[in-house]
């Protein structure tokens, strides 16, 4: 079995062959999504619930579309305004939903590890759509697919991840995935936005962006939350843009054919110059969004297959004992 996971909680538990299996299947869905008849049947009869404890438009839309294109019944729950605010615990919410027999649960939560906790309490497949500062696996997978399509491979590349590494689940998932696939990962950002002990992850750390970008095949920019810019972690927006914003001059230090990525939503003029974000020769930001739907279709398809197989085994076991 190329993909043996019950849930997709992070990149950390995945084997490189499982990552490749997801990406290979996602290629099929890229083709499907570009065809006129955008319908698959992999999730037919299944119920997918999107639980977003943090507001999100893009990721939620991507998961919703992915589920619908594969034939699932999709329900969106915006938990930011619901009973959670009335004091119900995460586990009670999970148990309530579990009683409705969903097959796929897509969860985003503000606390690291919250999705792991939830996955222990339900008997369906759980997908982590971002938990606190921990992981955001489908983002890393869609980035990987984008890189593989643009660069023709996903190994032995120099990849610079720039910006707010400390608060970014995207950065964590990406550096784990890219490390597993044997790439050279550099982290670029001010020391206040660099997590402790990060050198031990097998990455190179730079606080000078030009040095960090030198010879890079891929430049991955991260979003900097506005509330972190006013003297808390960096002195000001303009100083941040001056030192760590991606502009043509800094990008010139990377390889000539380096691609520029951003998980969105972008702060133009803060971490990235608008002209670069829109440069179709360098920026793959729109393609990332497209790959996002395909990768999420692939993840849910693979998890659904395992879920069906597991339920079938349980049914046979019960039949044998009953």
């Amino acid at each position, binding site marked *: 079995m190329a993909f043996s996971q019950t849930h997709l909680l992070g990149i950390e538990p995945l084997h490189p062959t499982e990552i490749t299996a997801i990406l290979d299947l996602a290629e099929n869905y890229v083709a499907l999504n570009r065809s006129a008849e955008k319908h698959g049947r992999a999730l037919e009869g299944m119920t997918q619930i999107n639980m977003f404890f943090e507001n999100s438009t893009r990721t939620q839309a991507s998961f919703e579309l992915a589920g619908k294109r594969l034939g699932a019944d999709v329900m969106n729950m915006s938990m930011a305004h619901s009973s959670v605010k009335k004091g119900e615990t995460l586990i009670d919410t999970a148990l309530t939903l579990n009683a409705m027999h969903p097959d796929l649960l897509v969860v985003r939560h503000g606390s690291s*590890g919250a999705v792991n906790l939830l996955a222990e309490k339900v008997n369906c497949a759980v997908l982590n759509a971002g938990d606190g500062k921990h992981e955001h696996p489908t983002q890393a997978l869609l980035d990987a697919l984008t890189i593989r399509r643009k660069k023709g491979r996903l190994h032995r590349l120099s990849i610079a991840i720039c910006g707010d590494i400390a608060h970014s689940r995207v950065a964590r998932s990406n550096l784990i995935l890219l490390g597993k696939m044997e790439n050279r990962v550099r982290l670029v950002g001010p020391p206040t936005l660099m997590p402790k002990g990060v050198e031990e992850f097998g990455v190179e750390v730079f606080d000078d962006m030009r040095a960090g970008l030198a010879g890079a095949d891929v430049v991955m920019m991260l979003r900097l939350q506005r509330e972190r810019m006013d003297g808390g972690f960096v002195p000001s927006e303009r100083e941040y843009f001056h030192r760590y914003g991606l502009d043509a001059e800094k990008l010139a230090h990377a390889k000539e054919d380096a691609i520029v990525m951003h998980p969105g939503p972008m702060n133009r003029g803060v971490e990235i110059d608008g002209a670069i974000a829109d440069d179709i020769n360098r920026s793959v930001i729109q393609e990332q969004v497209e790959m996002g739907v395909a990768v999420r279709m692939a993840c849910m398809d693979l998890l659904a297959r395992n879920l069906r197989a597991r339920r079938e085994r349980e049914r046979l076991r019960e039949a044998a004992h009953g």
Partner: protein
Amino acid sequence: MTLWFHNARLIDPETGTERTGSLTVEAGQISAIDAPCPDGARRIDCAGKCLAPGIVDMGVQIGEPGAQHRESLRSAGLAAARGGVTTMILRPDTDPAIDTPEVLEYVTRRAEARTPVNIRCMAALTRGRAGREMAEIGFLLDAGAVAFTDGDRVVSDTKVLSRCMTYARGLGALIIGHPQDAGLSAGACASSGKFASLRGLPAVSPMAERMGFDRDMGLVEMTGVRYHADQITSARSLPALERAKRNGLDVTAGISIHHLTLNEFDVGDYRTFFKFTPPLRCEDDRRAMVQAVADGLIDVICSMHTPHDEESKRLPFEEAAAGAVGLETLLPAAMRLHHSDGLPLPLIWRALSFNPAQRLGLPSGRLTAGSPADLLLFDPDAPFVLDRFALLSKSKNTPFDGARMQGRVLATYVGGQAVYEREVSDA
């Protein structure tokens, strides 16, 4: 009642020795060592097992008043008896806090009727543990408070703390501090480093503990107060502690058994039963702490018994409550220091029993004639697998659930009375 323990492996923390012998208990006191059996005495054959002074557990939280559903004086007392703890030193972090003589008397009076083991109270240093106004230290001392602390709330206003210390100095009271820089550690639930970064948990450097300790040492030097650090858990704090002691400050330090036996990796996939204040440290720190206990630099090992209901722990790691129950697991966990880390039993008992009693001015913790017969008979080797639902504590939040442990309490005696007996043969 007169008791005669024979064929016992006597663990004497005061002299740091262990040997086989007999011990006589009369009128609630140890009356003789290696004396013949008095007429009419109950003869207890220890079968070569260990007889030691009962544990003096410095820092037990009980839900009375305020949270009886988590732990009552009765349930804690039963747990203590089974865990070999003969004196519980209660923390004042109750609701309301033990910050007036009235609350202290209420707790003491209720404890007498409900708890088979000895109870002494620490009192809050400031009213409501709010860090603003001094509690009635004098009245509280008269009512029996053995020490003054705001628990894990740091008194961040140095002026308030310096006045409390100066006032306490005049009364000879012991102040227990929680060394931590409150600003640096705000919001953190893990020790900073590779593990916390991987898990995406808000983390604080162990340096925050050293900084808090350094600040407190400055105030201790300034005021001359008697001071005990509740938990020193990081190697970075040790040189400061060593220096303070060498300079003649009246300073001692403790550590919880969890920080001596677990490290940050035990948190694994966000297991909230491993969330502590301060957070678990790296393995290098843990080993340095074990060595510090062996060297006598750290004086006291305690359970930091902190009962929490299931709901407070069934939350995402950042939001979950910190702390674990420990009365019943203190001894078997401490046996890991013996079996795995090689510490001799008398040395461990010095930190569990003799030192805390001495620091708090209690007569127990000794194995000499005239001391109270607070005794503990245990088998240091007996293996078992811990089942948290078998604990007598009302709360079951132990990090050792399912752990293979060694060390079983066979019997516990308080003032010569058996408060727990499991497998004791009279002969």
